[in-house]
């Protein structure tokens, strides 16, 4: 078996892995290795050729390849090493090893002082949402179609229907239209748009593509290739209303129906998971329940902005480097972060409070939209931080920052309440 030793080993070379690698190097880690299964680094951003990235991190609007390119360039300049075309099979937290395989070295064992999980997420498929009907060719997830069209020069179809109004779905509606296909409909189960309004305006309205809210696909028709789809309006229980069923002739169906963090390796390593995010539980250092293993980006929780992924991953990189060098602050107590009113989940899930004060930022999503809301952090009976927001929305991640020295109890509660 081929052996490799490093200080920090990172699984995944997308935006999370690259940002973590850059931060680990800057913190002083000597040998930093990224293990990536694709033939090049940059992850999914390589196929996200559209603009809209970097507005909060770089204060300018970049395309995906430009955004990834900046971090990739920095990583290369700092001397980060890469194992490409390498599939990680196992992360072993007891021995601090990562087992991967590639066609050049065969089985490879990477021994590290700390490990960062940055595998990202993958798309939900037809099987995840159980659409009835035949199983012809021509049914793709939006992201796999995006890779075929934007990187491999393979057009996936001529007459397209898209299920799901997520950002990837709407962006693919525009992309397919620009490449000469006809996009006949975007169909959304919920009674509201899943993605950003901006994308509805610039990807659907600009090209006159119809959006059907409160509708779903009831059946896929076709023997060898998709011939069409049946779709119908849904009632308040999301059940299709038979009388409203209609047929659209098409040769391609794209699915943009949500993302799932890719955590097979995390689960296999026995790392504690959060059932709401389907990602590992982490503290403010992005450290998992296995103390030498850190995690960041979409593998922890699905983000809406890559800018947030970079910010979060730089923490993982910095603290994983500190762990590798033995300088990570020692915790004097552990504090649980508890979701209060109108908070779906919090990330990080706990705090390792050390003697010295630290400013920590908790990221979270609300359960339902609210106007004129106040975000409050409570510890014991005291309110230790507040923040006012004109509008909160489940689609947009919120955050609040406070000092660990103010935390009195063994837990803090974050809640979002409507102003009186």
């Amino acid at each position: 078996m081929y052996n490799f030793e490093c200080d920090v080993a990172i699984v995944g070379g997308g935006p999370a892995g690259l940002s973590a690698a850059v931060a680990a190097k800057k913190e002083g880690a000597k040998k930093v290795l990224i293990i990536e299964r694709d033939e090049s680094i940059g992850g999914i951003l390589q196929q996200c050729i559209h603009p809209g990235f970097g507005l909060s991190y770089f204060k300018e609007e970049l395309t995906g390849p430009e955004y990834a390119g900046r971090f990739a360039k920095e990583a290369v300049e700092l001397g980060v090493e890469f194992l490409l075309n390498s599939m990680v099979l196992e992360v072993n937290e007891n021995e601090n090893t990562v087992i991967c395989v590639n066609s050049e070295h065969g089985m490879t064992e990477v021994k590290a002082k700390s490990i960062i999980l940055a595998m990202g997420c993958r798309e939900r498929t037809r099987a995840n949402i159980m659409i009835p009907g035949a199983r012809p060719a021509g049914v793709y997830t939006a992201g796999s179609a995006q890779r075929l069209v934007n990187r491999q020069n393979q057009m996936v179809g001529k007459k397209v229907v898209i299920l799901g109004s997520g950002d990837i779905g709407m962006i693919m509606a525009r992309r397919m239209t620009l490449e000469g296909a006809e996009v006949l409909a975007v169909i959304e189960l919920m009674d509201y748009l899943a993605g950003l309004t901006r994308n509805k305006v610039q990807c659907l309205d600009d090209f006159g593509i119809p959006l059907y809210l409160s509708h779903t696909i009831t059946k896929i028709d076709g023997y060898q290739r998709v011939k069409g789809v049946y779709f119908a309006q849904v009632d308040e229980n999301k059940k299709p209303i038979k009388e409203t069923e209609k047929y659209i002739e098409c040769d391609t169906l794209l699915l943009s129906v949500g993302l799932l963090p890719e955590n097979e390796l995390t689960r296999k390593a026995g790392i504690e998971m959060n059932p709401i995010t389907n990602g590992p539980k982490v503290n403010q250092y992005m450290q998992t329940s296995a103390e030498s293993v850190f995690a960041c980006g979409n593998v922890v929780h699905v983000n809406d902005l890559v800018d947030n992924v970079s910010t979060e991953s730089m923490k993982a990189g910095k603290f994983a480097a500190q762990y590798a060098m033995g300088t990570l602050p020692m915790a004097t107590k552990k504090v649980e972060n508890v979701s209060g009113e109108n908070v779906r989940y919090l990330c990080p899930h706990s705090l390792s409070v050390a003697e010295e004060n630290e400013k920590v930022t908790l990221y979270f999503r609300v359960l339902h939209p609210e106007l004129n809301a106040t975000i409050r952090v409570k510890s014991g009976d005291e309110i230790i931080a507040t923040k006012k927001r004109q509008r909160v929305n489940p689609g947009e991640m919120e955050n609040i920052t406070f000092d660990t020295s103010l935390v009195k109890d063994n837990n803090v509660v974050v809640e979002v309440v409507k102003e009186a």
Partner: protein
Amino acid sequence: MKKEIICTVCPMGCHILVEGEGENIISVTGNTCKRGEVYASAEFCHPVRILTTTVKTDCEKTPLVAVRSEKPLPKEKIMDCMEVIRKVEVKTPVSMYDVVVENICGTGTNIVATGNV
């Protein structure tokens, strides 16, 4: 002429009603901030979009390189620009921000690479 414009400056998504004729704006209503007024006025007179797409390369392993318009292009010219870009094939190596098509469709804007091949 009256036109309803959904503001895309921030996630509020205000529905702004603009009344005017060509370059001449009579009224802007429904916006909740100044930025909305600026956006809606520009969108009413001259809607523009950044165009991103791909062009073919002569490299077998990497058949496409991502490209963008350096500046936003007039919305109505987008499909014409695509017709031009569709026929282009670039010689590798190509580096980030190399000009792929100069002054596309007489707009004064270049199409540049956003990747390295």
